C-alpha cells in the first residue's frame, strides 16, 4: 500500500492551461505538504496544511491554490500555467505531535512539464 500517493505522476500541458494534482495519504497524519523541486533539483516547501487549515504558505504565486477537503487529502490546483512551473511537485505528510518532532514522508512526485 502506498502511504502517500499523488496523481498524475506525469503531466504535460500547454501554457495557459489550468491543472490539478491530487494527493492522498493513508497514514492517518495530521499535516500535509506540497514541495516543489526545480530543474536544479532544489527542493522547497510551498504549502502545508494541518487538519485542513493552511499553516505555511511560502512565497508562491497566487495561481497556485491548495485545497484540503479533509486531512487525508491535499490537492494542488494551478491556474494559467507558465513555463517556469515545470518541475516535480512532491506531496508529503507528517504526524502532528508537537515538539516530539516527526518524519515527513513523501509521495512519488508529479512531473509537470509546461510546453
Amino acid at each position: 500500500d502506498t502511504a502517500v500517493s499523488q496523481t498524475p505522476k506525469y503531466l504535460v500541458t500547454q501554457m495557459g492551461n489550468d491543472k490539478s494534482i491530487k494527493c492522498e495519504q493513508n497514514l492517518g497524519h495530521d499535516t500535509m505538504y506540497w514541495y516543489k523541486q526545480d530543474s536544479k533539483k532544489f527542493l522547497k516547501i510551498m504549502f502545508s496544511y494541518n487538519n485542513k487549515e493552511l499553516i505555511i504558505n511560502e512565497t508562491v504565486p497566487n495561481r497556485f491554490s491548495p485545497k484540503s477537503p479533509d486531512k487525508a487529502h491535499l490537492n494542488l490546483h494551478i491556474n494559467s500555467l507558465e513555463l517556469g512551473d515545470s518541475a516535480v511537485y512532491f506531496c508529503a505528510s507528517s504526524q502532528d505531535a508537537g515538539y516530539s518532532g516527526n518524519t515527513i514522508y513523501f509521495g512519488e512526485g508529479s512531473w509537470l512539464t509546461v510546453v
Partner: protein
Amino acid sequence: AQTVTQSQPEMSVQEAETVTLSCTYDTSENNYYLFWYKQPPSRQMILVIRQEAYKQQNATENRFSVNFQKAAKSFSLKISDSQLGDTAMYFCAFMRPPYSGAGSYQLTFGKGTKLSVIP
C-alpha cells in the same frame, strides 16, 4: 532562517567501499531534527536516516550511519559497503518543530550530492 549546505555536488565510490557525504547547517535553534533523504533516478524521495538534536548518540540504519557534531553543526552520512542501488541524489535536511503547539514541521533541504557507485 535555517540554511543547509552540502559542499560536494558530486561524488563517486567503488562498489563495496565506504563513502562519506558532508552536510553543515546553520541555526539558532536548540531543538531540531536532521534527515538524509535519497532520491534515485525515479525521483522518489526516500528517507534514509534521522537524527534528533537532543540525542548524542549517532543514528544508524544498517549500512548507513551519521556523524552528528552539534557544536560544529555538522551532520555527515557514511555509507558502508556501497551497493549499485545506492546511486542517487542525497539530500540533507533540517527540520525545526513548529513554534506554536500545533502546526507543521518545515524541512529545509540542502542542494544535494549526486552519488555514483561504480561497479
